[in-house]
Each structure stands twice: as C-alpha cells, then as structure tokens.
C-alpha cells in the first residue's frame, strides 16, 4: 500500500483536523448523550449549515453565520423546552425544519455555482487550510479546558439539573454554556465534516463510549479516542477507496457504535442484580 500521500501538506492538515475535530465533537457528544438532547444537537447542526449558506449568499464569513444561527436555534429551543411551553420534540421539530428550509432557500438564492454550498453540506477535510486548523484547535482546547475546569459542575448538571440547582450549582448557566460549546464545535467542524454529517461525529463516539463504562471520566476519554479514531480511519478509507471523507468518517464512527453496542457489558445482567432468594423466603 502506497502511503506516500500522507507526506503531503494537505493530508497532514486533514489528519490534524480529524484529531482536533474528533476530540471536540466527541467531548461535546458526551453532554448530548447524557443529557438526552440529541435532537437539539441535530437542530443546531442544521442551523449552522443554514447560517453558513447565508454567509455565502450575502458575502460574509460563512463560519460567522454558522455560529450565529446555531446559537440562535439553541437559544430558541432551549428556553422553550426548559419552560415546558412546548415539548422538546415539538420545538426542535419546528426549528429543525425551519433551518433546513432556510438552508435550501439560501442555496436557491445564491448566484452562480453551488460548489461552496455543497462542500459545507458534505464536508471537505482534505481542503482544510491552516486557518481552519487554528480555529478547530482553539475550539478543541476551549472545550476540553472548560470540561476539565468545571468538571464537577458539568457532572452534577448532567446527572440531574434540578438537584444541581438545589445544592447551589448554577445549573442553568452550565446548561447554556454546554449549548454554546456545542454550537462552537459544530461551527468549527462544519467545513471538515459537513452540515449533514457533523452530528454523527458528535453522537456516535459518545454513544459508543456510553455502552462501555460506568465512569463519566472514562466516558469522556473513550469518546475522544473513538472520535479521533473515526476521523483517522475515515481518512484512510477515503484515500484507499477514493470516496468522500466526511462519509467514511461518519460510517466508521457508526461501526464503532455498533460494535460497542453489541459487546456492551451493560447489556449483561449483573450477578448482584439478581440476588438469589435465601431458603425459606417466598
């Protein structure tokens, strides 16, 4: 197998992007999985895609549009679900379809070729620039750094928000901080993985880690490892079979989840969960 391709600058950029994007997405994914909010994440990913297209159409930086619309969607969905005015499924469903509609509207209004828009849809990690990597790196460091600094607040909020509030933790601020980090991660990874696929890289590594451990710290580490592995393995597959890298990254992360789910120790009934009845008991 000729691996000389990995000596080229564009491939090294892609490897670094997969590493940083894998860590950031998979870390954010732990919040998404444990707080049972995958649909809010999907909604934010599509909002980011719509925002990027708005930027392309109106001629400003697509990443600014992606970040703004992704946060706007979280700012709408979060409080609606929080106050119980609408069920989370309903509010996410409405915003999700609106964002997808806006995305295709902006694409339709865009003059000339749509190649830039399609790149944002499918992702093109092989064309990542030094600037993209720096942005991804900053987001990855901020995400991991904040998890490290505020681990106990995040852990309590993830476990039970009302309980975290009742012991004096600012759980609402932590929740919105988590949504903010999710928006930033989606934006930074948008060009590499693509608006349609990014959410799989957020959800799958964390969902796989969730199958394998009862320790939250270990779940963060496993998730990040699966995220990076998905990125690298996806890149290799993409090169070997000459297929789009965003798709191979997502398929790899899905296969990891499938294997983790099949071999999950959590599926087995623990001995201590089935206590034998002592003699004489009914």
């Amino acid at each position: 197998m000729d691996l000389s391709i990995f000596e080229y600058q564009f491939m090294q950029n892609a490897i670094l992007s997969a590493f940083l994007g894998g860590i950031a997405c998979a870390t954010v994914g732990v919040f998404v999985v444990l707080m049972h909010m995958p649909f809010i994440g999907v909604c934010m990913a599509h909002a980011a895609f719509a925002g990027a297209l708005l930027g392309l159409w109106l001629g400003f930086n697509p990443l600014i549009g992606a970040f703004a619309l992704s946060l706007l969607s979280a700012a709408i969905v979060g409080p609606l679900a929080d106050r119980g005015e609408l069920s989370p499924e309903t509010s996410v469903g409405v915003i999700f379809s609106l964002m997808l509609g806006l995305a295709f509207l902006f694409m339709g209004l865009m003059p000339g070729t749509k190649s830039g828009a399609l790149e944002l849809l499918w992702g093109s990690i092989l064309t990542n620039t030094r600037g993209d990597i720096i942005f991804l790196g900053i987001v990855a460091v901020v995400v991991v750094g904040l998890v490290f600094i505020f681990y106990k607040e995040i852990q309590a909020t993830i476990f039970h928000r009302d309980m975290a509030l009742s012991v004096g933790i600012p759980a609402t601020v932590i929740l919105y901080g988590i949504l903010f980090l999710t928006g930033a991660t989606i934006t930074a990874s948008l060009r590499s993985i693509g608006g349609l696929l990014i959410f799989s890289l957020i959800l799958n590594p964390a969902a796989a880690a969730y199958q394998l451990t009862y320790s939250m710290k270990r779940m963060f580490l496993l998730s990040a490892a699966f995220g990076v592995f998905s990125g690298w393995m996806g890149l290799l597959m993409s090169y070997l079979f000459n297929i789009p890298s965003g798709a191979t990254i997502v398929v790899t992360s899905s296969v990891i989840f499938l294997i983790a789910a099949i071999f999950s120790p959590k599926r087995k009934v623990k001995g201590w969960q089935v206590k034998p009845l002592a003699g004489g008991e009914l």
Partner: protein
Amino acid sequence: MGDTVIDIENAVVSYREDVALRGVSLKVKSGEFIGIIGSNGAGKTTLLTVVNGLGKLLSGRVWVLGHYLTAGNGHSLRKKVGYVAQVQNIDPRMPMNVREVVMIGRYGLLGLLGRPGRHDWKVVDEMLALVGMSHLAQRPIGHLSGGEQQRVAIARCLAQEPELFLLDEPTASLDWKAQTDILELVKQIHDSRHLTTLFVTHDLSCLPVACDRVVLMKAGLIWGEGSPGELLTDDNLSRLYDMPLSEVKKRRSENILV
C-alpha cells in the same frame, strides 16, 4: 427574630395562570420538625421551593436563615438547604456511582473552582455509613432500588451539611418496607442532629411520628396549623381531603390514614 429560621409572610407564587400559593404565612423555629400535609396540588411543594429559593415570589416576604429572598440570592441560600425530592427516574446506564452522587452534595460548598479533597470524601463515606449504604458505594446509581436511591439522596443532602432539611414526598412510590425504613432514618437524623426539618406528604400514613407540628394545606393556603394530636381529627381530615367522614374513619381504622 430569636431562634426563628424561616419567616414567610403572605407569600404568593404563581406558575403562568395557576396560583400555587395564595398568601401563605409560616414561622419555623430552629430544630422544629414540621409535617406539611395536603392533597395533590395543594401547594406543598411550592412552599418548599419558596424556602430553598427556587420559587418565584409574586408578592409577600420570605426570610430564611438570615436572608430575605430576592430574585438573585437564592443561589447562596441553597448551599445551606438540603432538599430530598421524590424518587427520581435515573437512567440505569448513567456513568456515576453512589459515592460520586453523594459527593454532589459537597459541590455547592466547594465553590466554582474547588475540587473535592480527602476531607470531602471522608464526609461522603461517613454519610453513606449513616444511611446504611456503605456496601453499595461503588455501585452504579441507576442500579439501585427506589428505597436505596432515597437513602443516597438523604446521604447527599447530609453531605451538604445543611441547616435546613427539606423532604418532598420522599416515600412516594416506595413499597411499605422502604417507606418504613426511610421514615425511621429521617426520624433518627432529626433526633441526633436536631436539624430543622420540613417534611411534605400527601399520604398521612407516611407522616413521621417525630413531627412537632403539622401544617395542613389546601388550594394554595394554610388551612390549619398545630400539634398532630389536636389537628389530625377525623373531622379536619374529612374537610381537608373533601372526603366523607365515614370514609375517613374507615381508612383510619384500616391504618390507611393514621
């Protein structure tokens, strides 16, 4: 205010169009054990959220542990108030063990950048021993029974070193044995620590015998207040629960209502 720790005057709380408290006044002295009784929707839980600073006052005045409650200061008050809710629906795959959950009780005291140290873990282990859960310390929290989860919730609450102990239907949806165990544990904690305790229940058979005073609530108002012996008469219960007197007598004789 002497040894008064809670002083609520004419508190009105509303959730959208529903008024949950319609002008409630209550004084609680340090070390008292108060049972708050009433049917579902009477405003019992809302009264507790007013005490721990989570409720939003429309009008009235609430003074708890030296703080007048305003929109912004509930956060610091909650660090001093232990709150045990009903049995929670915990994800069986949640990656946290019992010991880690009890440690959450210390997080408010530790502050934003504080890390749990050896002393904090020692307190956690002592509280687990107190509630008889040391042997399950490493077990995933989602694998516990309802009664065990309530013991952990009480341990978490005590690890907080609270000045007030609020229990909101802690025995709801538990079996008879677990209910008895939790009630006994709450009584034992109150007796040994003299913690000011507010115990909410809609089920009179779950009212701890340790209660100094009972507060009867109906439709967002305090409907009666006094010693359990004076207040919990068949006639009062019949009016409180809108239930025929004969039915109350029958249920009390069957020990469904004490």
